[in-house]
């Protein structure tokens, strides 16, 4: 995860087709829980094959935004537009349409599998719902997907508890890809993994994007990870977007004091905790 090859991810943008319509756009999303406004007027667009980072601390509203995109929360106001059509209501048809276009990867790869099903069964199940076909076709597709994410077919016959964290996250990615979505929302998808495994998963995600033209919404608190995997980013604080732009640009010369604070908070030589604390107090007074 050196910063040197961070910009190479931008190449995927140019290989995308000429369609200029965004595959996903959020318009003025607001989500209130009682008196708390978790998401406050969040708008962004995601082009086909692009990768957008949503950065912020815990409580910044980034996860709530991701959950709204995936249909796990209903926005208080505002709309999500997928593939040119607004996601509306919670009907069975609307949810199926949404699921076919957008899938989500969770932070806890172990928890996101039914502990009693083998990995191959778990991957085949959403496939049966969204892409009807014979048992044989599905089995072939499962093997293909396992291969694509770098898992052996033996891993496919294992239960989730017999795999390592990295293998489980690969399996979760395979399961999401089985639906052939256009957008993948990754909510802290590598936060629970060891650093070396993180790098492998990030490389895998990068390759997948280049090969399939899928788009990512990458939610993370980890700026190094976001720098590697995304082209553009938005920085959220208290539910609002405080800064947006090219990821590299934001991280190299942050304009908003909060972004600067996030960058200063990363442990590094000459790290000044007092200054970070001082800056945070100053920011809270704003």
């Amino acid at each position, binding site marked *: 995860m050196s910063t040197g090859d961070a910009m190479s991810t931008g190449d995927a943008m140019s290989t995308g087709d000429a369609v200029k319509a965004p595959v996903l756009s959020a318009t003025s999303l607001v989500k209130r829980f009682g008196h708390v406004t978790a998401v406050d007027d969040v708008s962004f667009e995601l082009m086909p094959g692009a990768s957008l980072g949503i950065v912020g601390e815990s409580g910044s509203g980034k996860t709530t935004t991701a959950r709204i995109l995936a249909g796990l929360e209903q926005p208080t106001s505002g709309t999500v537009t997928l593939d040119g059509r607004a996601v509306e209501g919670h009907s069975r048809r609307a949810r199926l349409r949404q699921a076919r276009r957008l*899938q989500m990867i969770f932070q806890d790869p172990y*928890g996101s599998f039914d*502990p*009693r099903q083998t990995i191959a069964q778990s991957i085949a199940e*959403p496939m049966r719902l969204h892409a009807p076909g014979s048992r044989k076709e599905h089995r072939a597709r499962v093997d293909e997907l396992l291969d694509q994410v770098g898992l052996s077919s033996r891993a496919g016959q294992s239960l989730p508890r017999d795999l390592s964290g990295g293998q489980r996250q690969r399996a979760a990615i395979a399961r999401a890809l089985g639906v052939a979505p256009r957008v993948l929302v990754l909510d802290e998808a590598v936060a629970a993994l060891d650093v070396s495994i993180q790098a492998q998963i990030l490389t895998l995600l990068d390759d997948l994007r280049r090969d399939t033209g899928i788009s990512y919404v990458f939610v993370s608190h980890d700026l190094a990870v976001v720098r590697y995997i995304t082209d553009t980013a938005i920085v959220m604080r208290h539910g609002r977007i405080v800064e947006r732009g090219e990821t590299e640009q934001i991280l190299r010369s942050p304009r908003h004091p909060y972004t600067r604070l996030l960058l200063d908070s990363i442990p590094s030589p000459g790290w000044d905790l007092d200054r970070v604390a001082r800056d945070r107090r100053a920011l809270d007074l704003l």
Partner: protein
Amino acid sequence: MTLTIPALRARSARRGRRRPLIVPFAAGFLLLVAVAGLLAPVLAPHSPDATSLLDSLLPPGTEGHWLGTDSTGRDVLSRVMYGARLSLLAPLGVVLLSGVLGIALGLLAARAGGWADAVVSRGMDIVFAFPSLLLAMLVVAVSGPGLTAPICALAVSYTPFVGRVVRSVAIQEGARPYMESYRVMGFGELWVTLRHLLPNVMPVLIAQSTLAFGYALVDLAALSYLGLGVRPPDADWGSMISQARSAILQGEPWSGLLPGLAVLLTVVSVNVLGEHLGGSIGRKQSEGA
């Protein structure tokens, strides 16, 4: 989910592997009773209804009647074997019925939440507070003797016993992230509940139902003893004990003691097995975390 200290965990794992000696005995005894009941027409030495007043109240060990005879000369061993059929089938009916009701209500309460949960849970509390035997007797008083009515009544009063456990496990399991991952994949609530939640609730349900089976057997035997259950000429162990009352007063307790012993040993075996199932499931779950 749980933080386990390695040393403690190793010890509990060792203890888990060493199955208590009584468990195979309990399972073996239940198997024996089930086979005896199932194959009674083949294995029983006599017809259970063949009376012979000349041979009445023979003590155990008599040639031809190894466990003796009752006051009308019927072979006790044959009757205990035939009695096993109703004595095991009727509680099985109770367990199956209450299992279905308990699963339905428990899952409904856990998944719907809100007022549905409140209504179902309070309803189950009320039924739970009502003595099962009393409810069964009330129902029999209305419908007349016979096994169907008490089986239904007991099934209703055992429903909370199953339903409350199903509800709490389903709530716990339903909060796990994989439930949400299935929702994102576009699956309906019913599919996720039946296809993924229920199988993960099943182990606890089986352990709980095993215990319920023992309670139901005792309750049904008590009803039959009171003359409210099985109608003659059908017989279960409870009605056999009841018919032996006069013999016991005459100082010939055998024909009543043996069916009583059958009830006792069966229920103890069932409870041992149920406790063991419940315990080993608990262990397995904590190991998986």
